[in-house]
């Protein structure tokens, strides 16, 4: 405000002096002879200065609009996180009370109805816990140490192979990580969380594909990030459903027969974003699905 006033002082002075001169009836003429070159140079410089000023104003306006948008996204995410935390907070006491009420009932074990209530209360309890975990993950501090995604993926793959074998099923799994000219660089992050994200992708690939179908796991380095892709030749997702796959509790109507809570990909997205990266998906019904994680490379050498 005060700087605006200071800038307006010359204009104000000019107007006042002009009025004084006009009132005094002394409206003389002031003629200056200037070489054309000087006029052109001064005019050019003035026009440039005005344009530069306008450009800076425009840039400032644009960046404040972009910041506004980013602030909007952040505010929305924060509101969403608070909602999840509140939901958890408001659900856990009632669920605790339901579970202890059923447990306090001496006939609980012999009543088929109470057994259903007990099982459903347990399921609700697990869901509350997972929502809480997701909400906490959005805000809790995470570890930043060098992590080798290739070895995490290999470990999770060997666990998946064992689980599939123990269920009497198998997938045709191939794994490709570079060794030349050098292996994947380490990313900066929390190994436990990254392992969970990778496990969710592998479990999804196995869940939504049949026995003998292909699962391919690939890793590569690109523009300062490690990309990790888990692709399957399974049933795929319809185009209109793809934008929803990251939403909490969202499940495709096509997936009704498959066990799950609808929190797996939400978790993958949160883990990727907390590491400064992102998750993306491509899919076609009947052809398969590919999910990619992009995680920035660690600046600390292993």
């Amino acid at each position: 405000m005060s700087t605006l006033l200071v800038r307006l002082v010359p204009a104000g002075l000019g107007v006042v002096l002009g009025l004084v001169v006009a009132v005094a009836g002394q409206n003389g003429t002031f003629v200056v002879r200037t070489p054309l070159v000087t006029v052109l140079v001064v005019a050019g410089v003035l026009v440039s200065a005005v344009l530069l000023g306008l450009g800076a104003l425009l840039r400032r306006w644009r960046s404040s609009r972009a910041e506004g948008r980013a602030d909007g996204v952040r505010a929305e995410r924060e509101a969403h996180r608070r909602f999840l935390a509140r939901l958890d907070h408001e659900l856990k006491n009632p669920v605790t009370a339901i579970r202890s009420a059923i447990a306090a009932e001496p006939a609980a074990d012999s009543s088929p109805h109470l057994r259903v209530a007990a099982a459903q209360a347990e399921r609700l309890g697990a869901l509350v816990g997972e929502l809480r975990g997701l909400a906490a993950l959005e805000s809790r501090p995470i570890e930043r140490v060098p992590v080798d995604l290739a070895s995490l993926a290999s470990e999770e793959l060997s666990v998946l192979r064992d689980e599939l074998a123990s269920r009497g099923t198998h997938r045709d799994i191939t794994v490709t990580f570079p060794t030349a000219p050098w292996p994947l660089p380490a990313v900066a992050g929390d190994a436990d969380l990254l392992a969970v994200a990778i496990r969710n992708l592998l479990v999804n690939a196995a869940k939504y594909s049949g026995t003998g179908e292909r699962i391919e796991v690939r890793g590569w380095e690109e523009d300062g990030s490690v990309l990790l892709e888990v692709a399957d030749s399974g049933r795929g997702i319809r185009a209109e459903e793809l934008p929803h796959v990251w939403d909490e509790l969202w499940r495709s109507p096509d997936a009704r027969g498959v066990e799950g809570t609808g929190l797996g990909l939400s978790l993958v997205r949160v883990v990727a974003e907390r590491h400064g990266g992102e998750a993306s998906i491509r899919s076609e019904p009947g052809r398969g699905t590919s999910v990619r994680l992009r995680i920035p490379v660690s600046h600390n050498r292993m």
Partner: protein
Amino acid sequence: MSDGARTSVLLVDDEEAITSTLAPYLERNGFEVRVAEDGIAALAALAERSCDIVVSDVLMPRMDGRELVRQLRRTESWTPVILLTKVDESFERVAALDEGADDYLGKPFDPPELVSRIRAVLRRTASGRRPLSASDRLSSGDLQLDRTGRRARIAGGAVDLTPKAFALLDYLMSHPGELHTREHLLAVLWGFEFAVTTRAVDHRVAELRRVLGDDPGSPRWIETVAGHGYRFCGEVSHP
């Protein structure tokens, strides 16, 4: 336990729906139960008559569960306390342990789990002495743990541990000789069993062994109990 009578539990929670159902459940399991609706009521109930163990919610009006634990410990009262914690971040849970709670259980919990925690805590605290979990410093051989400064030293030299590895060592060392399942240790580390596989615990134990130079074949501190979990096998003392 008191006078050879039934184990007495003081259940502290402001949710009547919980106390009115959990109290009869605990009574069915052989405990004598009194109920208080917040920390102030709990202190009044304890002044009137002591109990064997306190099971308390954390968030309550007037006086919360943490303050209740602090008040008890300030007066050198070592009555064991299990917090039914509502906080969901592991460091806060560990902080709850730091303040002298003996164990914690996140809501909503499986009621039989509460009964087994009560029994485990009572076994651990049977001596009635100041519990390890109420100490700022612990030591086992040449390993020393500064619990408030969150630093570990071996033979006087500082060792570099990640926060989660420290939290795990802290928990194991303040509960020596007890068998902890991977699932329980995972809840200690993460505050929730959420999706993180129990291999996360194995990785942290491997980190601890590497940094502390503890040989899993003949451990001085952390012992693997095959098929079950881990146990802190060193003798732990506090100044």
